[in-house]
């Protein structure tokens, strides 16, 4: 994809980014999970994940589960995550969300009542640090926007505070059998 088609709302601009290299785009629907197993973490210090759009057909949850792997996706880590973010919801305002021990990153990438909001999708941009740096922890910061029962925005990030090389990641339905759909692009920032 011409990378210039990726709109970065945070900047209000469009980046035609020869130095922001597309690693892979996943377009998916009617599946339980989607994986990125070639992160090129040995090349890039910082990755950017663009959520062009995502949604689901499950009405009782409003996120995807986001998991990391150190063995190329053979298995995924289910402990040691933490998150802190501000949720901003129409009619409510700021809500603090934080937890220092989680089994996954919550990927605010879903729309709960898609049947009622047929045009609704979640979008967002995620900056991911130190996937390939075995001596540093893997963190990400995010801006994402979705529709649950009302429109919400999320500002914050996630921590995986164990050192090691992260070389795969997966987004799924928590293993409970609902369908997810969307388009995600993973980029690496070139710094040479």
């Amino acid at each position, binding site marked *: 994809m011409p990378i*210039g088609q990726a709109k970065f709302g*945070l*900047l209000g*601009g*469009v*980046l*035609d*980014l*020869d*130095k*922001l290299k597309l690693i892979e785009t996943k377009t998916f629907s009617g599946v339980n999970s989607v994986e990125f197993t070639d992160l090129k973490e040995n090349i890039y*210090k*910082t990755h950017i994940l663009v959520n062009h759009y995502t949604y689901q057909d499950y009405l009782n949850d409003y996120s995807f589960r986001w998991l990391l792997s150190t063995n190329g996706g053979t298995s995924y880590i289910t402990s040691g995550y*933490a*998150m*802190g*973010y*501000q949720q901003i919801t129409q009619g409510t305002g*700021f809500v*603090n*969300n*934080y*937890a*220092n021990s989680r089994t996954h990153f919550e990927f605010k990438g879903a729309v709960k009542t898609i049947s009622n909001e047929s045009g609704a999708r979640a979008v967002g941009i995620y*900056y991911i*640090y*130190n996937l390939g*740096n075995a*001596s*540093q*922890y893997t*963190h*990400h*910061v995010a*801006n994402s926007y979705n529709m649950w029962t009302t429109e919400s925005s999320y*500002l*914050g*990030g*996630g*921590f995986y*505070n164990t050192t090691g090389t992260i070389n795969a990641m997966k987004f799924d339905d928590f293993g409970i059998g609902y369908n997810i759909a969307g388009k995600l692009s993973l980029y690496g*920032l*070139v*710094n*040479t």
Partner: protein
Amino acid sequence: MADSFNYINSFTVSSGTTTFNCDNVFSADYDKYMISFNGIYHDIDVSNGIEGFRLINSTGGIESSTLYSYCVRYMDYNAGGGDNYSVTDRNFLFFGLYADQLSDGSGNATVYVHRPYDSATYTWFSSQAIGFNSSSGYTNTGLGVFKSAKTIRGFQLYESNAARTFGGGTIDVWGIS
């Protein structure tokens, strides 16, 4: 300037110092810049919120007057969120880069700098940072401004406490046209 988003330079933070200059990165070629702070840590055991940075003017001088203003919304993953802002103008720009010695944690951030080289405008910042130390983990979303219309050519990673020296990490700068 062939690209709309172009790599400018990378820096490896020196250990044993509380100031580290990233000079000659801003120019007339771009209005906006993206700075990526990757794994910034201290070389001593200290849970710290690094003050942030100061700007470098067109003659290489450090802008250390009380001309910086900022507001940061933070989230502590053990205790919840709040605001961290300059009640009065400060002599540095804070953007929520929390760190420690490497074995305890480090800080990462993406900072956008708007119109630093334009001598007719103030320099503006928007940022997102995430850091971890032996106290907790912190995410931070911030806005800031350097309230003097002058040409700025670089920036300095800055810590005011002389005992809290940096240990390492990298800083990458891109221009956005």
